[in-house]
C-alpha cells in the first residue's frame, strides 16, 4: 500500500467514524450515535478523565484494591479489553495523549506569553522547528545579533542568569514557567540575590546554557526548559542549573530538577527549591555531580 492509498483509507475511516460518509465495506453498520454535534450536545473530552481513577475491567475480583494500586501510578492498568484488543475509549485516549505530546513538540510558545512576562526574546541558530529537531547542535548556539542581545540583557558577570527555553515542549513552558520563575525570583530575593531580567530562547537546547555562560560570564545559568513529552503529561518542565557554564563544560556539571508539572513537583515549590539550589551553588562554587558529592560528604 503506498502513501496515497493509506491516506485515503485513513480519511475514509475517519469520515465513517464521524458518520459523515456511507460505509463502503460490505458489512454496513449504522453510526447513529455519532450525531451529538447536531443536537448541540458536546462530546465528552476523554483527556479530562484522571487515568489513576479509571478502572474499566468488568466483574473485577477486587476493584477497590486495584484502584488503590492505580492511585500510585499513571500507567494504563486495568483498562479491560474487547477481545484481544483495547477498548475504544482506551485506544482513543492513547491517541489523544499522543497527539497532545506531538502538538507540544511542534507548536511554538506564544509571542504574547513572552511579552506579558517581560522575557527578552532571543533565538538560536535554528530557523524552523524542523531544523531545531534535526540539528541539535544549532539549538545550542546563537548568531552575532542574538549574542549582542544576550550580553546587553544580562550584563557582564551576573551572579545568576535566568533563562527560559522552549525545548521539546512549548506546552510545558506555557503551563509552568511563569509561576516557577516568580517563585525562583522571590526565593533568590530572600537570599539577597537579584537575578535581573530573564531571557526567552526560541528553538532552545539545554546546551544553549553554555553559550550564554561563555558570553556573559554568569556564575550560575539557570534554565527552565520544556521536557520531551510523554504519554503521561505533555506539560513537564525541567530546570538545568550549571555553575560556571561555558562551551565544552561536561554534562556531569549540570544539576537537573525534572518532572515539574501539575501532578509532579508543582511549579511554585520547584521554584523555591531551585532558588535554594542556586544559593548553594554560589556558596560551594559547584554544580552537578561535583555538588552532589560535596553534599554527600557533609550529610549522612
Amino acid at each position, binding site marked *: 500500500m503506498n502513501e496515497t492509498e493509506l491516506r485515503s483509507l485513513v480519511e475514509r475511516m475517519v469520515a465513517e467514524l464521524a458518520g459523515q460518509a456511507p460505509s463502503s465495506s460490505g458489512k454496513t453498520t449504522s453510526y447513529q450515535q455519532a450525531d451529538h454535534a447536531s443536537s448541540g450536545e458536546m462530546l465528552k473530552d476523554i483527556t479530562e478523565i484522571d487515568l489513576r481513577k479509571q478502572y474499566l475491567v468488568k466483574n473485577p475480583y*477486587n476493584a*477497590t*484494591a486495584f484502584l*488503590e494500586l492505580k492511585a500510585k501510578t499513571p500507567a494504563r492498568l486495568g483498562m479491560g479489553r474487547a477481545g484481544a484488543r483495547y477498548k475504544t475509549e482506551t485506544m482513543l485516549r492513547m491517541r489523544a495523549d499522543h497527539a497532545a505530546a506531538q502538538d507540544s513538540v511542534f507548536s511554538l510558545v506564544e509571542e504574547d506569553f513572552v511579552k506579558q512576562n517581560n522575557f527578552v526574546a532571543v533565538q538560536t541558530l535554528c530557523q524552523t522547528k524542523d531544523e531545531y529537531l534535526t540539528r541539535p547542535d544549532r539549538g545550542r548556539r546563537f548568531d552575532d545579533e542574538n549574542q549582542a542581545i544576550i550580553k546587553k540583557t544580562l550584563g557582564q558577570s551576573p551572579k545568576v542568569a535566568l533563562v527560559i527555553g522552549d525545548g521539546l515542549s512549548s506546552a510545558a513552558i506555557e503551563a509552568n514557567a*511563569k*509561576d516557577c520563575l*516568580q*517563585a525562583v525570583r*522571590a*526565593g533568590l*530575593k*530572600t537570599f539577597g540575590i537579584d537575578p535581573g531580567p530573564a531571557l526567552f530562547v526560541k528553538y532552545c537546547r539545554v546546551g544553549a546554557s553554555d553559550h550564554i555562560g561563555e558570553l556573559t560570564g554568569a556564575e550560575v545559568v539557570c534554565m527552565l526548559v520544556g521536557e520531551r513529552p510523554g504519554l503521561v503529561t505533555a506539560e513537564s518542565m*525541567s530546570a538545568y542549573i550549571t555553575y560556571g557554564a561555558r562551551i565544552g563544560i561536561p554534562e556531569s556539571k549540570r544539576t*537537573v*530538577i*525534572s*518532572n515539574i508539572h*501539575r501532578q*509532579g*513537583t*508543582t*511549579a*511554585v*515549590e*520547584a*521554584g*523555591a*527549591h531551585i*532558588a*535554594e539550589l542556586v544559593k548553594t551553588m554560589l556558596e560551594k562554587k559547584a554544580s552537578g555531580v561535583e555538588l*552532589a558529592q560535596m*553534599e*554527600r560528604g*557533609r*550529610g*549522612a
Partner: protein
Amino acid sequence: MTETLKSVGIDIGTSTTQLVVSELTLQNQSNPFSVPRVAITEKTIVYRSEIYFTPLLSDTVIDAKGVREIVAGEYQRAGIRRDEVQTGAVIITGETARKENAREVLSALSEFAGDFVVATAGPDLESILAARGAGVDEISKDKHISVLHYDIGGGTSNLALYSNGHLRATSCLDVGGRLIKIDAGSKRIAYVSPKLEGRFPGVVRGAEASEALLRPVLDEMIQSLLEAAGLEAPSALLEFYTTQGTKPMKASGVHLSFSGGVADCIYTPPADWLAYGDMGPLLGQGIKKALDRRGVQAVQGVETIRATVVGAGAHSMDVSGSTIYYRDVSFPLKNIPVLRIDPMEESGDLASAISEKLRWYADEGGLSQVALALEGETSPSYSRVIALAEAIQAGLAPLLQQGFFPIVVLERDLAKVLGQAMAPTISGTLLCLDGISVSNGDYIDIGAPVAGGTVVPVVVKTLAFEKK
C-alpha cells in the same frame, strides 16, 4: 543518602511498663534528577526490655521514682545514652493515664529519656499506636481487607479499625484483665476498678475469687467486645463499657486481630489462671471460646503484649515533606496545639478565619504559641501563594505582636515556596512544614532537621487526658 535515627518507645500501662529501642532508616526515595523525597524506609527493633509490673505507690498514684529507675536500668542494659536517643515517645496508657500524677510522670520521663522523646497519652492515640505496633495497618493494606484491632491490656481495650491501610475509626472500652486483681496466695479479690464496683453481686474486695464468681463479669466484657465488631447486635452494654470521651465502635464484616497482654492469654494461656493475680487469663480464654464458637479466625499481628510500646517507639514519628522552610527555629518544639482551618474557610476570607479561631486559644495570660494547619492547594499559581502568605500574616498578626512566631503546617507540597514568600516581611523565627495532616485538638512535636537538613521529624498526638 541513608541515615538512621535511634528511637525509644516507653509504655507505662495499667499493668506493665516496657521499653523498646528501634532504628529508623531515612532514605531519599526520589531519583537524583528530582526534588528530594525523604521517607522512613525501615523500622527495626534493636532492643526489647523486660516486662515490668507498673510500679504504683497506691491505687491512685504512680511510683515516679520506680518508673524512672526501670528506664535508667534498661538504658544501661541496652547500652544507650540519653544523648544518643534522637526521637521516640513515652505513652501512658489505660488506667495508669487516670492516676493523679500521670501528667507529671509523663513529662518528667520524656525529658529524662531524650531531647526529642515526646509525651503522649489518650485512648485514641493509644489505639492507633497499638494497631501499628502489631502491624495491622500493613496487614490490612497488603491483603486489602478491613481489620478491627483490639489491644486488650490491664485496664482498657483499645480498638482501631483499618481498611486497606487507612485508619477508619478508633475507640476504647473499659475492658481489661486487671480491672479486678486477685491476691494469688489467699485467692481473695484485692482490687475492683471503680467502673465495676457494685455491678456484680459478690464481686467485692476481700471476697474469695473463683471462675464462677467472675463469670458474669467476663461474659459482659466479652459481649461488649463482640458488639463492637458487629458479631453481636450493639446494646446498652457497648455504651456502658465504651470509655468516657471516646465513641463506641460499630464495625461489621471485619477481620479481627488482638494484641496486649490478654492477647497472649488467647493464644498461649498460662497453666494457672491465677498466674498474674488478675482475670487476664480467664478473659483471654473466654474470648478464644467466643471466637471458636462463631468460627472466627483472628488475623495474627507481629506483636502481642509489646504492640503499644513498639508502636510508640517505631511508629509515632513521621517526617515532614522534603521541601520545607525554617529560619532561626530552636528545635525541638514540643506540645504545640494545632489551630486547624477547614478547607471552606481556606478558600474564603482566610485572614479573618485565622484571627477568629486564634481567640479560642487565648486564655487569661493572653495568646500562646500555636501551629496553624491548612490543607493548601494542589498546584497553585504564584499569585495564590502570595495571597496565602499575606492572609496568614494578617490573620496571625495578634500572635506575632505578642512575640510568638508563625508555625504553618500544610498538607499539600507548598511549604518552601510559602516560607520564602513570607520570609521578607516577617522578622526572625519562621517555620513552614508540609506533608502533614493534623486536626483541631491535636498537638504537634517537631524535632531538629535530619537527612542533611531536608526534613524534620514530627510527632502528631492528642494529649487529651480523661477528666475524672
